[in-house]
């Protein structure tokens, strides 16, 4: 069969079965900015059946150094609407659900829904911690990624691995208007998309318990083994409310 998936279906990790599997999966992408652009693009192109996009923001001119889902014509439009349009042009065979909402403690569970994987593409740490907590409770793997300037990281949260609070992240660390090079967001978002696809396919070794750190200044990657913190409050709350 010749179709858009030919080049990836040829991979041992995908094949006919893997491609069908992707079509049945649902991924929630929280944030459609610098990380969300590559994540949504590659997941759509790979044929993930349902993409749920959560984004409340409006396209601004300062987004255009990195957020390639949008064009100059989209400035002033809701990102959710503009992103859905662009993704539908990329792949009309998948379903793109958009939720024009800001993720909070109150609505996080509903917004995440029954996703098979959540990809965290947020620009603040407080919301990332909310996502981690809901997902640990619901046993949904999270692919975390973050950028700042020339630097970035990727970490999969789930299983026996640590969450961001285990590592020491705190809601008080939120920063406004973090400087970011578009290409660096592209590197990290692309890695997040690859990790997400691996988890959906049950292929390879996702980055659970391994913090992958990118240094765009020196052009190096570091892998740091990271462990769960037994005193982590986020983990305790999530474990206490865990679904059976």
């Amino acid at each position, binding site marked *: 069969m010749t179709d858009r998936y030919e080049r990836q279906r040829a991979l041992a990790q995908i094949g006919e079965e893997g491609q069908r599997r992707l079509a049945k999966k649902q991924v929630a992408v929280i944030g459609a900015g610098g990380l969300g652009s590559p994540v949504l693009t590659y997941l759509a192109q790979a044929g993930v059946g349902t993409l749920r996009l959560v984004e409340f923001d409006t396209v601004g001119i300062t987004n255009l150094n990195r957020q390639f889902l949008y064009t100059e014509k989209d400035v002033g439009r809701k990102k959710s609407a503009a992103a859905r349009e662009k993704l539908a042009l990329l792949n009309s065979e998948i379903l793109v659900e958009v939720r024009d909402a800001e993720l909070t403690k109150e609505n996080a569970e509903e917004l995440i829904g029954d996703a098979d994987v959540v990809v965290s593409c947020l620009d603040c740490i407080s919301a990332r911690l909310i996502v981690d907590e809901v997902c640990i409770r619901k046993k949904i793997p999270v692919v975390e990624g*973050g950028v700042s300037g020339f630097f970035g990281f990727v970490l999969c949260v789930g299983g026996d691995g*640590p969450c961001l609070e285990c590592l020491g992240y705190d809601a008080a660390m939120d920063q406004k208007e973090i400087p970011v090079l578009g290409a660096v967001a592209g590197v990290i978002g692309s890695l997040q998309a690859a990790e997400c696809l691996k988890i959906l396919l049950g292929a390879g070794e996702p980055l659970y318990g391994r913090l992958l750190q990118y240094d765009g200044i*020196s052009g190096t990657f570091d892998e*740091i083994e990271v462990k769960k*913190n037994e005193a982590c409050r986020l983990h305790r709350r999530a474990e206490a409310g865990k679904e059976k």
Partner: protein
Amino acid sequence: MNGNREKGMGDMVEVRLFATFREGRGKVCYLDAAKLVKASDVLEVLRIPQEEVAIYLINGRHSSMEDRVLDGDVLAVFPPVGGG
């Protein structure tokens, strides 16, 4: 200066720095364990303000500023990288 140091062990503490903490300090620093008591001492030697640290790991585990630092420990220190 450290001839009888075995692989991964010895009287030194290895501090791996990340992102902006590498500026002017390099990627890895080796400090004399005898001159260090707790985690915050390491930051003082490296002139990294505590409030700029997001992740501080000792041997892969979260550490408080009061935690003891021992010979052969591998530390990792990161600023916040939370943008999207």
